[in-house]
């Protein structure tokens, strides 16, 4: 039974990694695409419709980045829970010496850096078109 639980935890960790990767890539890609679109709008002739379109994309950036941030925070927490369970299992089996608990803090740092990358590209996508305009 313990092996099944172990497989389940490993499977969950894999799913968690994929989900987090999708969050990060989607957010960064969308930020860059929106940066291009809004820069194009900002450098063309200014009118009311274009301003509305620009602000709509800004709202989209904010929402997507917020979703990505919440997703990454939840992903980090989920990963920690799964790894805590895994570590406890190893401890019960007397093989905890093969797993370094400091890996948990490394994951935290990595998630924070992912969030920072998403935030910075989001900020650039928001600010640059307004500078051009």
């Amino acid at each position, binding site marked *: 039974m313990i092996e099944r639980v172990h497989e389940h935890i490993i499977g969950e960790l894999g799913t968690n990694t994929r989900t987090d990767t999708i969050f990060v890539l989607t957010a960064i890609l969308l930020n860059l695409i929106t940066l291009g679109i809004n820069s194009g709008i900002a450098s063309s002739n*200014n009118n009311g419709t274009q301003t509305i379109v620009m602000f709509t994309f800004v709202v989209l950036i904010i929402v997507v980045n917020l979703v990505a941030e919440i997703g990454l*925070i939840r992903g980090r927490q989920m990963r920690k829970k799964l790894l805590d369970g895994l570590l406890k299992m190893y401890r019960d089996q007397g093989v905890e010496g093969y797993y370094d608990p400091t890996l948990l803090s490394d994951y935290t740092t990595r998630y924070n850096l992912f969030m920072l990358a998403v935030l910075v590209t989001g900020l650039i996508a*928001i600010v640059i078109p307004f500078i051009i305009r």
Partner: protein
Amino acid sequence: MIFQHVNGYYPFRMRKGSKYLWFLLVVIAFMVLVPSGQVTAQEDRFELVLRVLPGYYYREITAGEESTLYLAISNIGNQAVKDIRLISDHPRGWHVDLRPDSIDYLGAGSSQTIDVSVTAPSGTERGEYTLTIVAEASQTRTATSTVVRVESAFSLWLWIGVGLAILVIAIFVMVYLRLGRER
């Protein structure tokens, strides 16, 4: 020697040859004289050229501040042009001052520089604007255009962008602090 006669008569061959010679001389004289006659009969040509001096095209100016552009007016005709008036066609509310705004006499082949002081009103939106300068005299007329790029001294859009960025950072920090706690 050619026209020398033998016993008071021109030999037949010589007389025929001299006719051809005269004809040739007439043709040559015609060819020489006709072009010079054309020069003397050339029409009076009044032609002005107005151009923006290099480096002053697509000039960036700041709204509310005076900037100067330089143009050159040249008379490329063969006659002097008198009483040239210089007029500017500019966006509404702009102040464009031409110095000089009229030229009494511009000789053939001569040029003159014109200073154009441009002031866009303070509230002018950032963008590209066309400025046209027209030079007209009673005999001829010419015009040139230049693009002026206006940069606002105070950009409202920039501050909106900065404000949004601060808002996004605040939301991120708030969400991070609320949800980011390890549970």
